[in-house]
């Protein structure tokens, strides 16, 4: 190891570390700030280009229309922080939605259906987590299995869409609270609550800190006596539960359970989380970054609609933006390492 720092033993016998560069405790904030900068730039750019782009209505819909993605991103952040990945979230979201629609259509009360959705999500997460931790299966493959399973089970429940007529579920999306042009729906509130709780867990609970530790160096975390096994499985459970919540939100949004929902959503989620400053290698990233990432995604979608361009440009632009972000992130990391 190169010793780049001087070490003094002061007269009283204490050892100080003379760090040549005051290393900020949170170097990992830089990618998040970059994401925020991009978001603001995009909003300004849109405003300049379209005239009336940044309106209360648009900002409100940014959250409400993408509430499902916010929740998915929250769960995905946990998984990616440990250095893993969860490809099943889109399919689990679809499955829980399908399950809910089916149960509601045969008369099961809402108060039973909603918890059941969360449990279903948790079960998928547990399966993936156990495969990853106990059987040493790579997260990519394990969550791929989860994705296949959930998607297939969607079709087992029903090959066609099932309409949802339950007033409570529909109300989650349709009820508007707000003043003037600002508005928010219960689904939006749910999304914000989820992010807030998730952020708190990451910063103020042992579980959250263990998540970061695992992402930093799993072997060290184990040697330090942390509950690595439990935490590794738990992050997938969290992701699964979030997928269940997202299923609820999405179902109320589309007023139906449909087996082709959420195809490709896992990629959107990963893109949002990465754009938001969380490193795919794990150990670095913040919940608020993922929220910003989702907003970036939402602004792009809105801009494309305003431009009247073909919807396929949406994916292309996300792709380009993701690329740009990753290249810049790489540049920043390389600079930091050289210092």
């Amino acid at each position: 190891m190169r010793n780049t720092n001087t070490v003094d033993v002061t007269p009283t016998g204490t050892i100080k570390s003379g760090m040549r560069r005051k290393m900020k405790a949170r170097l990992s904030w830089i990618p998040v700030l970059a994401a925020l900068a991009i978001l603001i730039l995009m909003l300004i750019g849109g405003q300049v280009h379209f005239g009336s782009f940044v309106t209360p209505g648009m900002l409100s819909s940014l959250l409400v229309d993408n509430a499902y993605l916010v929740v998915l991103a929250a769960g995905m952040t946990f998984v990616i922080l440990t250095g893993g990945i969860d490809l099943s979230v889109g399919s689990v979201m679809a499955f829980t939605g399908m399950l809910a629609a089916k149960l509601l259509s045969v008369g099961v009360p809402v108060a039973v259906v909603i918890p059941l959705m969360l449990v279903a999500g948790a079960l998928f997460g547990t399966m993936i987590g156990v495969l990853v931790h106990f059987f040493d299966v790579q997260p990519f493959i394990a969550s791929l299995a989860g994705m296949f399973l959930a998607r297939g089970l969607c079709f087992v429940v029903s090959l066609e869409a099932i309409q949802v007529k339950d007033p409570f579920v529909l109300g989650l999306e349709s009820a508007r609270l707000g003043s003037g042009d600002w508005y928010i729906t219960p689904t939006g509130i749910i999304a914000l609550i989820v992010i807030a709780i998730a952020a708190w867990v990451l910063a103020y609970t042992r579980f959250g800190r263990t998540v970061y530790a695992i992402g930093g160096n799993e072997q060290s975390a184990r040697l330090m006596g942390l509950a690595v096994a439990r935490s590794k499985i738990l992050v997938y459970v969290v992701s699964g539960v979030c997928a269940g919540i997202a299923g609820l939100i999405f179902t109320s949004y589309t007023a139906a359970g449909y087996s082709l929902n959420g195809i490709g959503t896992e990629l959107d989620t990963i893109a949002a989380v990465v754009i938001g400053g969380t490193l795919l290698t794990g150990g670095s990233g913040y919940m608020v970054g993922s929220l910003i990432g989702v907003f970036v995604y939402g602004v792009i979608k809105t801009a494309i609609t305003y431009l009247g361009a073909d919807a396929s440009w949406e994916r292309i632009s996300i792709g380009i933006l993701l690329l740009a972000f990753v290249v810049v992130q790489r540049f920043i990391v390389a600079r930091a390492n050289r210092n």
Partner: protein
Amino acid sequence: MSDNAVVVEMRSISIEFPGVKALDDVDFTLRSGEIHSLLGENGAGKSTLIKALTGVYSIDSGTIQVSGKERTFAGTADAQSAGIATVYQEINLCTNLTVGENVMLGHEVRGRFGINWRATHAKATTYLRQLGVDVDPRSQLSGHSLAIQQLIAISRAMVVDCRVLVLDEPTSSLDRSEVEQLFAVMRRLRSRDVAILFVSHFLDQVYEISDQMTVLRNGKLVGEYHVGELSRSELISKMLGHELDELESIARTASRTIDRTGNPILKITALGRKGSIEPTDLDIYDGEIVGFAGLLGSGRTELVRIIYGADRSDHGAVEVRGKSVRLSSPRHSSNHRIAFSSEDRRAEGIIGDLTVAENIVLGIQAKRGWLRRVNKAQSDEVVAQYIESLDIRPVSPHILMSNLSGGNQQKVLLARWLATAPQLLILDEPTRGIDVGAKAEIQREIAKLATAGLGVIFISSELDEVLRLSQRVVVLRDRRKIAEFDNHESFDIGDIVALIAKEGAA
């Protein structure tokens, strides 16, 4: 020494692996308030014994008693709960977290709303202060040197209230002042009745810091000695089982004269890179071994990496046999018949999942490109030649590289480079972390090759090795070459150290 309470008592420990008895009826005693070194070369059973103590391995027979109570460890967590903490060579902390968090991870101070960070960081400071370390707990761990990180790891051990601290090769990457600082901390802990198990290859340090020594050889206990009881050569012969002829027999090659009239193999002029190594000049001639001496961080590795093209230079020129060249990548250097063996053989040398044969042939294959494959007959011949001349064990070329011991891995890497018939061989710490026997073999081979005409740049932290082998010694400090002289019988380690110190004071 014998008045101190016995903390750990291992009796008649035996552990067997398929085909080899790693530990055969070994006893080991550790007392509180003592620093105890465990010594032995590769295969002696040192690492196995430690793993048995720290819960990594389960024992086949024998007993382990901690503070009088018999314990069976089902895993590392069990050993930790018995008060045995280990700080490994690669320091198992999380560099993406803060110092304070690393110290307190898993034991953070919690309030009603979750972790109370202010209190947690304050507590961390307390633990660090107990060791005499003053570091901002809110700073990120990765910003601190390895030496400080090590001390932070030791603080962590104090948090879990350990009675036994196992330090596994803690000084391999530290410079002199950092070693001093570590020893100061160890002495502090000793005065607090912590029992410290110190594992190191550096015999000087063992003599400096330990109270007791236990020597193992071939899985058996040779004996436990008070540190004043044995001289260095007695100790080494107990470790090796026979007199120290090996090392003495490598004739001091210093007196060999080098013909410096023709073109040097390599001539660098003002070669450097900002922040890593100042512009430096150097020539190397056929048959010459140039030894680089210097402390860690002096720039030795940086310089040779730039020479080899593993890292980019931003200043200076290189000539190979009088012709100006640009060595901008390992490929270019290889084309000019320059070979380089990195100091980190695990990360930059061995290809673990490939066989010994494939590892040896890799250098030649890389030169030939992917299209022209080295055929089986050629490969077998080359591989067999080097397995024999370097005495690589086990002798089968089809064993996976990852299954060899450190010393044999280093020999395989040496074979890889020698097989490419280089004119200049750069060796960065080739004998680090290797048993005494293998060290001697490698040094002997290097001396032989140089006598036959190979140019060598040899970096080693062990100054006696540098003096033994080199015709010319280059001394570096703080990223600069501060001295260069022809080696002479009369020079010894003290001279070099003085050189470094004198320049520092000036």
